[in-house]
């Protein structure tokens, strides 16, 4: 089942253009949606999760019109919102059971088994009887993924899932996601490049509501081969370089600044060519150094 988005646009009442002619094709497997804060990721996710309407454009999941047939989408959907709350006085198992019923798991016994199994999967089984009000951010996030996996979803949307997690927990979380991504469309939105690098077969970079780039991480990195140059400079010089060159990123290293710049040839004295990584792809795209040829190709 493939998800295709065509020319999706959304403008909010306050005038913000959250999505501008977004077109994407997403195959089963993990799909990373990269973008800075405010890029329109959450708007896109919520639109796909049937929580929001669009001004124009289409989105289809298999033969389902996502915008017009929300009921059919919801039957296939697992959604973990970026920010959500839980009833503080309800236990994990009770809330998950309640949500399972809403997902259509009608028979009590198998539903209970599914709930227990999912709680085990996210390792909340031992605390299942405890009130959600006492859960830590990580535990709550895991509860969120458990509910997203209820009812055998075919489209899983996870919005900034690792935001509150410590590095270790992030790794485990990724494993869990990778585990389910076999024949399911999983869309992961994040602003952390390494999340995508580790997990996703495909990615798209969006900013200011526009898709800037799509492709496979490996191919995109390869396309920058021999185009990324590196130089260690003083802080003052870095500022000057920023004005002159197509600087991709600057990073402090032991008190000095490492400047990475984009260039088909050596951009200046002291620059040496370096091995590109996905971050370079992302930053170059955001900075506008990379056109989006892949987007058209998709």
């Amino acid at each position, binding site marked *: 089942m493939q998800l295709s988005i065509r020319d999706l646009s959304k403008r909010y009442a306050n005038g913000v253009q959250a999505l501008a002619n977004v077109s994407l094709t997403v195959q089963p497997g993990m799909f990373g949606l990269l973008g800075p804060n405010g890029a329109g990721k959450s708007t896109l996710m919520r639109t796909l999760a049937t929580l929001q309407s669009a001004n124009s454009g289409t989105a289809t999941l298999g033969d389902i019109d996502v915008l017009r047939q929300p009921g059919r989408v919801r039957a296939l959907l697992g959604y973990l919102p970026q920010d*959500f709350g839980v009833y503080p006085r309800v236990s994990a198992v009770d809330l998950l059971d309640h949500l399972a019923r809403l997902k259509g798991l009608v028979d009590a016994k198998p539903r209970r088994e599914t709930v227990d199994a999912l709680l085990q999967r*996210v390792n909340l089984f031992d605390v299942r009887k405890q009130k959600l009000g006492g859960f830590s951010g990580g535990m709550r996030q895991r509860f969120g993924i458990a509910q997203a996996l209820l009812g055998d979803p075919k489209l899983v949307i996870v919005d900034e899932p690792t935001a509150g997690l410590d590095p270790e927990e992030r790794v485990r979380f990724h494993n869990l996601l990778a585990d389910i991504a076999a024949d399911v469309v999983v869309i992961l939105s994040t602003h952390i490049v390494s999340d995508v690098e580790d997990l996703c077969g495909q990615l798209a970079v969006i900013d200011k509501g526009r898709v800037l780039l799509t492709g496979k991480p490996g191919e995109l990195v390869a396309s920058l081969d021999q185009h990324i140059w590196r130089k260690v400079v003083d802080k003052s010089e870095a500022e000057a370089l920023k004005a002159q060159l197509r600087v991709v990123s600057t990073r402090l290293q032991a008190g000095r600044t490492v400047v990475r710049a984009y260039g088909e040839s050596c951009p200046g004295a002291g620059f040496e060519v370096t091995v590109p990584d996905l971050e370079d792809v992302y930053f170059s795209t955001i900075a506008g150094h990379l056109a989006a040829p892949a987007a058209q190709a998709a």
Partner: protein
Amino acid sequence: MTLLAIAWFDFSSRLRAVSTWVYFVLFAFLAGLWMAAAGGVFAGASVSFGGDKVLINGPYALAVCIAFLGFAGVTVIGSVAGRAVQQDFEYGTYHFFFSAPIAKRDYFFGRLLGAWLTLTLVFLSIVLGVVIAVHLPGIDSARIVAAPSWQSFLRPYLFLLLPNMLWLGGCFFVLAALTRQMTGVFVAGVLVLVGYIFAVNLLGDMDNKLLAAMVDPSGVTALDVLARYWTVAQKNGEEIALAGVFLWNRALWMGLGLLVVVVGYAMFRMQAVTAGRTRRRAAMVESSLPVEPTRTLAALPAATIDRSAGAYARMLPGLARLYCSEILRSPRFLAIVLAGVLLVLGNAATLGSLYGTNTWPLTYKVLDIVGGTFNLFVLIVTAIYAGELIWRERDTRIDDITDSMPAPTWLGFLAKVLALFGLQTALMLVVLLCSISVQLAKGYTRIELPLYLFELFVIHLPGFFLLAVFALTVHTLINNKYLGHFVALLLFIVVSRMADFGYEDRLYRFASRPNLVYSDLNGYGHFLPAVFWFRLYWGAFAGLLLVFTYALWVRGRDSGWRPRLRAVVGRMTPVAWSLAGVAGVVFVATGSFIYYNTHVLNPYVSRKEGQQLRADYERKYKALSGVPQPKVTAVDLRTDVFPEQNRVRIAGTLSLANKSTQPIKDIYLHYPPTAQAHALEFSVPARLVEETPAMHWHHYALGTPLPPGGVATLRFDFEYGAKGFRNDGADPVVLGNGALINTGFTPETALVPSFGYNPAAELTSDNDRRKHGLAPRSRMPDLDDPAEQRQSALTRDADFIDYRATVCTSADQFPVTSGYVKRDWTENGRRCISYAMDTPMAAIYPVLSGRYAHRRDVWKGPNGDVAIEIDYHPGHEFNLDRMVAGAKDSLAYFTAHYGPYQHKLLRIIEFPRFRRSGGFAASFPNTVPFNEAIGFTAKVDDRDPKDIDYPYFVTAHEVAHQWWAHQETPANVQGAEFITESLAEYSALMVLKQKYGDAKMRRFLKHELDRYLMGRGLEQKGEQPLLRADGAAYIHYQKGALTLYALQDAIGEAAMDDALSAFLKRWHFKGPPYPTSRDLLAELKRVTPAEHQGLIEDFFETITLYDSRAVSAQARKRPDGRHDVDLVVTARKIRADSTGKEADAPLSMQMDIGVQDAKGNFLVLEKRAVKTGENRFTLVVDGVPVRAGVDPLHKLIDRDAGDNVVKVEVL
């Protein structure tokens, strides 16, 4: 500085919020609407500030308006002040403030100040609304102060609104800041409201007025108590002052507010988590994800997934139960329920109190609480929880998850509707339990469970369901929780008060239904079907609302109107359409049926049209009021009552005589348009010339004029019956049990034809008259109107008549009317009794029919036996003994003191209540219909010194009317009630005094004084002295009782008897001309010794008030062991004009001077001469003096009776 910056930031961001301006506009609108309605902008509106004469922008009206609306703003105060800090927690912004270098003081008080500033601004809109409204076109210039003082606006704002904003705002602020939730604010808000309702109920008993004034958090009741005795002139001319209980009330609640703010400030911590939370978190086992997944997803057990509508439908009850139980178990709801319980119990404490005496907690009496104040409570809970349910997911921020679940939208929607219904059902159960507990606690064990269940769950609950749907619709449309609460409540009030603004038709008043009053005699009677039809009609409309609300239900993040409207298309499935279709069809069908009943079968007359009709009647026919009409000299009736069919057929022959000096050519016959005339014929040739049935007017011209002294008869045969129902419910013309048929004692709806222009049909309110271009009119013809002096005040149609009647009714009922039973038989399975009166009598006679038990007794009088009979409803035996005793003692006293009873029988007949208030008893020749709500169900505790035996008293009053109304009948001029009602009241008091002693009278007269002084402020026309009493109850009952009793106290019972018996003898069955108050006064003057002659003028000829005050009392022990008491008192006499404007008058009279011991016994009580100003007395007493003063028993009319006595200082 930081403090101010925070406050300003808060305030200015509120200024940018839409909700602030919505509140602003709504309050301005409400104030304007109220003023406009009271100012006469809406035709047919019945809104006023207590009396036609209270000017709408006068100080009192403004105070009431501002105070009341301000109090209605308690939800706004909660939302603005409560959210001030709580929203920092809700949105997580507290991190910034708490980690910033801001002192707690600056943050806390800055926020509080910001909230206060906002509220100050919002509530200024009330003043704005008032000012605008006063200038609207259509405002009656006679109802406004031309140049209102700015003080009249400022003072209520300063004394009521601002303090409430400060202290309530402070409390709400602190509650929300400390708990970091709005729960406490909701509960506190409900408690405040309960306090107000409780205070209003307490005020029902005047002894509680201080307590009532204090417990009302809004200060409105305190203002009421302060202004309780204000006359119209004071209400329009005196600015409200922060004094007395009003000051104490404000101080109490401001103090509480201050305390809460101080304590709250001390307890407030600028920390992310409070200690309690940390502990809870610590108890939690922290776990983490396994490094490697232990199982794959495929290993998840396969659960059956069924997403059919049927599967989700089966989920509905469970989900509704979940929502409902979540609320039911929440501490907030428990607190609210507790408040409701307190309310019910508090109301039950003064259940049905009359003269400070309780009634038995009959089931219907207890249930009246639900119909009354508890109603408001349910409304508030409904409005709030409708919002809570709608916002349940969004408040928790789990809405993204649940809204993207595949469950259909209708599932959550319907579950919430049902949950709200469940909540209301739970409240009804609470009422049920409370009510039964109240009954049991009062030792009443006749629990009528079926009645409870029917009234609560069949009558009330469906009405609450309608409001629940309405509240959900409002919240869905508004889509802002706090604004939604406010708007929902506002609309509840507007919808329920529409009729007062002249929009009366229940076809467009949501959830309205005709009143339904249960009676032990008549049950719900034939009033029930109309209620069900209206319920069905509005139920169908609620069905439409449900579909509409469902279609616009917010799911997902789209809150704008365009996407919501777009979603409607998807929501409106064929099922939804067909549900809407069914509801629509039922709505139209029932609506048509109701329309047929209320507009076709029964003519629909709105208040405005009714007023127009009366105005037109007066203009058209008033000129004919002087045309002589024949007088009825004898009545022979045949009345067939069909109680099961709510139908009566009245046939009869009226003997007529021309008692005037001119020939009678034209007869103006009056009877209602509801009459179905089977026959109507004069014994002389007569021709119908003109008729206006809607005005009851039928003009016959006689073929040959009836000469003076000439006689004729009129034979009529009319039928009346309830046909379907009217907008105000079924026609109460004939009740199923205990029917009291109005043959003519209420002229406007008299079923027996009457003669001539009927002044009772004229518009009475001067405001209404002005609106219809009519000159103001007095309530009664002038005392010296010679024509009216020849009219009996009891009926215009006759002087004294011969009366006989046959009444037939169903076999199981007892037919009764005035007179003596001549024949009692069964005819075609129906019970018939013939009655005849053996002496001439006043031409008013009731006809009743009911299933009665009979209590019979005999009073052996000096002129033979008098049979006493009480026809009562089985089960209402509570006070039969008291009533019999009252009848016997009265007959004995009146016979001995005034003259013999004219009949051989005295019959008291119980009849049902069919209005919630205003039960009455009325005295007809030898027959007294007596409402079940007044006396039959009183619970008199003889051991309680506070209790008044009013079944005994009311009986005595009605028996007294057999003398004062029936033996002497007054002329139809001012003062008529003085020689009927005041004398009956006085006579009954003397009987009561003989049985219970003078002390009990004092207790009774305290109530009468309170009600007299209060009545003055509600005067619609102008206060008259007793000599010109003109139908205002507070004058002829209360002032009459007070003054006649006080005169008796001064001149003695014997002198009174001398005057009254002479008056009675002079006017015994005399008329025309009939006696007037001047005739009685002449007798009273005759028997009053010179030193008390001034009382006649003070009591009866003028409006006089006394202001006596004890200044100091010092006692010195004498060598002989007794005490000298030096008493200083001041005294003042005040004369008031008809509006209540006062002027001092010189005082020189005999007043009581008394000294009491510790137990309250009088060591000395004697009359002494008192003059205006300071008076000094020295009294010698035995025993130890404790209290001393002037007029210690409050015999005189004195607004501040509390200062008449002081503590004695023993030197």
